[in-house]
């Protein structure tokens, strides 16, 4: 069966082999003829190999055609764009043309940013083709060859700069009529043309100046879709600070860029010209450049401030958006592990009061909301005061102090014990507030407690809103915190305001005792987590002291609970109270005398396969200069969202493989203890809390991308696979 099928293959392979060789040779010969006509001799200097190229095998008399100067730079060396930036000199060609031929100015493909800190220059590495428009003489004789020579001059640099000058020649065959581009260089011409900047006559581009920055508002037509990955290359100087980062935001297709003014520019500039390089601006995807030259105008009144496009840009949101995000964040906060245990306390109270007067239930709901709001305002006031005092703070700073962590652990452990029944619930709640009808104080204190415990958790949306708040005036910050508080309290106010919803809650009964005891366990889990945070801050010895302190607390509370009863003698109660208090205080003192850890070791998650490095601005710059993509994980021990993300997303085997394959530098910025450098880095991205995930492409000039606050392996795979 197989044999007859094989025969045709053998036939094809063996018979025309020599014929194919002849054909190949013939093609080569023809091609070399065409090739030698289509390019001049290549000239090599120590650093550059240059030649003149033609796109077509011949040109017709009077035809317009392009000639290219192809320069291949030695590895690590670069030449310059028409405007070199901080230093350098553009390539220059002076032509010796046959009579009747004309040559125009160099058409420059878009450059890349070459960063040699503290300078940034615009140039080309590897290879570049500079196109020059020519026009053949109208009286050129078909069948002849016109010889074009050029003196090409360039500055080629690596660390040092070397000016080089070469003489190049090109023979241009004259044909009878125009022919199509062909030959080995034709495709190179086509791909170079794709890199030429396109005109922007039908775009709306406005340039203005605000606070030492040039603001470019770029509104392309419908057929051009721009995202935040754009860079501006100035085409003249002094105008912009070439090395300063450019911030970009996108709002409904309009790109707003902020570019720093050059310190060497005095007075008000009249015009700004240059090219916009959009990494994804080409029609089929891929980069495209657009050139413009616009006058400066006064900033438009009511120009929309950039909005937060779901954490894909580093620019803060408008006030309304921030308020909406804060409210949403507040609602979601109720589900966060920090707040949920306290929420369970509140749910319990609701269940208990379900049978009561609906007006009272509503009042309780509002009192809870009042507690939340007052606590939010107190927190905002504290943060503003600290900010005014010059402290570098961010949202969640409280849990950076071990004392606070220990205090929270004690508070929650005590609450858990009271729920579990170690101490009489009634007695415990009496401590917090009044009994029975004046349980309003309990509701209020629950609101305060919920807010206080919520502080280290950053819910989705909340981070951006609060980051924005910390950069705004006191009034605006207070408004945003109010929105957050309103969001947190909203579910309860809703529950209390609509008695109908209460009908869905079950009637009081024996189950309530069990439920109350059950809610102790989320609190104990939170205490365990706080102990872990405490451990990161003070070491394992500190954890021992904390646990012993909590044990003493439990003992003190048990004594209190056992002997301070309604029916006990006054003296017994007094002794019990003293003994109990004594143990509790001893416990607190024991925990409080834990010394903080000398250096904050990076809170490493066992994410096997990813080699995390400690974050520093220098290491980021170093990796980027080396051409590696960089991923920064801003995290903290007390940030549960961070830990969950790390556990789920980074432990994925595929993610780890991709990280290795792309040679990504993975840096972890641990914000567990006060670290002003990290606070500043966060502020640089418009944030004041964690988690924050920043991804830099391998291209040293690319802008950073912010990933969502809740990560999944899928999100990481998508983001990392787009990294070049």
């Amino acid at each position: 069966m197989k044999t007859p099928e094989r025969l045709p293959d053998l036939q094809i392979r063996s018979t025309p082999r020599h014929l194919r060789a002849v054909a190949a040779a013939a093609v080569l010969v023809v091609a070399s003829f065409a090739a030698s006509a289509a390019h001049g001799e290549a000239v090599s200097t120590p650093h550059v190999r240059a030649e003149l190229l033609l796109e077509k095998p011949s040109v017709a008399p009077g035809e317009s055609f392009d000639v290219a100067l192809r320069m291949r730079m030695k590895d690590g060396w670069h030449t310059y764009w028409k405007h070199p930036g901080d230093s350098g000199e553009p390539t220059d060609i002076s032509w010796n043309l046959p009579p009747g031929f004309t040559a125009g100015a160099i058409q420059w493909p878009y450059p890349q940013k070459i960063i040699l800190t503290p300078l940034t220059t615009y140039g080309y590495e590897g290879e570049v083709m500079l196109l020059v428009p020519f026009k053949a003489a109208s009286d050129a004789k078909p069948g002849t060859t016109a010889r074009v020579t050029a003196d090409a001059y360039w500055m080629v640099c690596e660390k040092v700069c070397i000016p080089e000058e070469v003489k190049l020649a090109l023979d241009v065959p004259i044909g009878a009529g125009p022919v199509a581009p062909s030959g080995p260089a034709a495709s190179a011409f086509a791909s170079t043309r794709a890199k030429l900047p396109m005109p922007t006559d039908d775009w709306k581009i406005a340039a203005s100046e605000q606070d030492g920055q040039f603001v470019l508002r770029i509104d392309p037509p419908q057929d051009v879709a721009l995202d935040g990955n754009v860079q501006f290359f100035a085409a003249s100087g002094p105008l912009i600070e070439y090395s300063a980062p450019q911030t970009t935001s996108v709002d409904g297709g309009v790109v707003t860029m902020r570019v720093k003014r050059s310190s060497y520019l005095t007075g008000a500039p009249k015009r700004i010209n240059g090219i916009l390089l959009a990494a994804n601006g080409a029609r089929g995807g891929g980069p495209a450049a657009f050139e413009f030259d616009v006058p400066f105008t006064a900033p438009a009144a009511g120009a929309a401030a950039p909005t937060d496009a779901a954490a894909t840009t580093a620019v803060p949101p408008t006030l309304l958006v921030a308020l909406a995000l804060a409210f949403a964040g507040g609602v979601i906060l109720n589900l966060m592990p920090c707040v949920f245990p306290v929420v369970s306390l509140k749910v319990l109270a609701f269940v208990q009061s379900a049978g009561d007067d609906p007006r009272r239930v509503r009042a309780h709901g509002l009192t809870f909301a009042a507690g939340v709001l007052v606590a939010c305002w107190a927190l905002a006031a504290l943060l503003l005061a600290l900010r005014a005092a010059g402290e570098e703070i961010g949202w969640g700073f409280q849990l950076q102090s071990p004392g606070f962590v220990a205090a929270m652990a004690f508070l929650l452990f005590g609450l858990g014990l009271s729920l579990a029944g170690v101490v009489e619930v009634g007695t415990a709640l009496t401590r917090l507030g009044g009994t029975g009808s004046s349980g309003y104080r309990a509701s209020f204190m629950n609101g305060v407690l919920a807010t206080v415990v919520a502080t280290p958790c950053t819910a989705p949306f909340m981070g951006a809103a609060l980051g924005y708040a910390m950069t705004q005036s006191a009034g605006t910050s207070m408004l945003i915190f109010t929105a957050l508080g309103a969001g947190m309290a909203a579910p309860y106010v809703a529950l209390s305001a609509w008695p109908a919803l209460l009908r869905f809650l079950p009637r009081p009964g024996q189950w309530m005792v069990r439920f109350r005891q059950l809610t102790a366990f989320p609190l104990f889990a939170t205490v365990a987590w706080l102990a872990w945070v405490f451990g990161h801050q003070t070491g394992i010895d500190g954890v021992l002291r904390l646990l012993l302190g909590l044990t003493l607390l439990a003992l003190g509370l048990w004594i209190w609970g056992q002997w301070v009863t309604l029916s006990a003698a006054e003296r017994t109660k007094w002794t019990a109270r003293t003994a109990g208090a004594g143990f509790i205080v001893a416990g607190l003192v024991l925990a409080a005398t834990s010394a903080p850890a000398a250096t904050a070791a990076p809170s490493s998650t066992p994410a096997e396969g990813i080699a995390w490095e400690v974050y520093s601005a220098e290491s980021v710059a170093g990796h980027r200069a080396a051409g590696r993509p960089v991923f920064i994980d801003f995290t903290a021990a007390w940030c549960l969202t961070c830990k969950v993300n790390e556990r789920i997303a980074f432990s994925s085997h595929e993610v780890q493989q991709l990280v290795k394959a792309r040679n990504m530098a993975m840096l972890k910025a641990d914000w567990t203890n006060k670290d002003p450098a990290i606070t500043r880095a966060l502020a640089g991205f418009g944030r004041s809390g964690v988690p924050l995930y920043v991804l830099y492409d391998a291209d040293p000039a690319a802008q950073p991308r912010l990933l969502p606050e809740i990560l999944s392996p899928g999100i990481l795979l998508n983001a990392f696979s787009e990294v070049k």
Partner: protein
Amino acid sequence: MKRKLAVTSLLALALFVAGGCELDEDSVYVRPASYVAPAIGKAAPEFKAVDTYGKAHSLSQYRGKWVVLEWLNHGCPFVKKHYSNDVMQALQKKYAAKGVVWLSIVSSAPGKQGHYSNDKANDLTKEKGAAPHAVLVDESGTVGRMYDARTTPHMFVINPQGTLVYMGGIDDKPSTRASDFKDARPHVDIALQEAMAGKPVSVATSQPYGCSVKY
């Protein structure tokens, strides 16, 4: 505890080794948050540096005199353009005669282009017929970073009160071709003429051009 000790020792060893070795890459410099860039009309940053004869200089010691700072690297083609055509030397001599203190500053790090031993630097000065008041050696790049000196040449003119009156390029033709001199506006020459005559400096800043300073 042991692991921390091991890590710290390794780090110390690495730093020691790195310090000893000649760093091939441009070391990454992070500007401190407190940095104030030089600005026209403001006091020029005070600096101290030693020249090629071992003599110490500071900006404050020249209070009462006009001072010109010229960032220098004899290996740079842009600097060569000015020195080969005697343009820089002529400017130095012209203003030395008027009592201007011209300080050439070399901020090249050891091993990088433009850095020479003191003897070699003095030889070059004589060879080229340059006439600066002194050639200051700024190997660590401290003075350069203070002034945000980016290129060679990069020029600063300071008045007798210590205020910066000009900063930027030596002229307006950022090229290495000598043929550009005839069309160039010599910014520093004009700035000095105007300022010394008590007139406001018409062009107080311009784009500095040249090779990057080899920190």
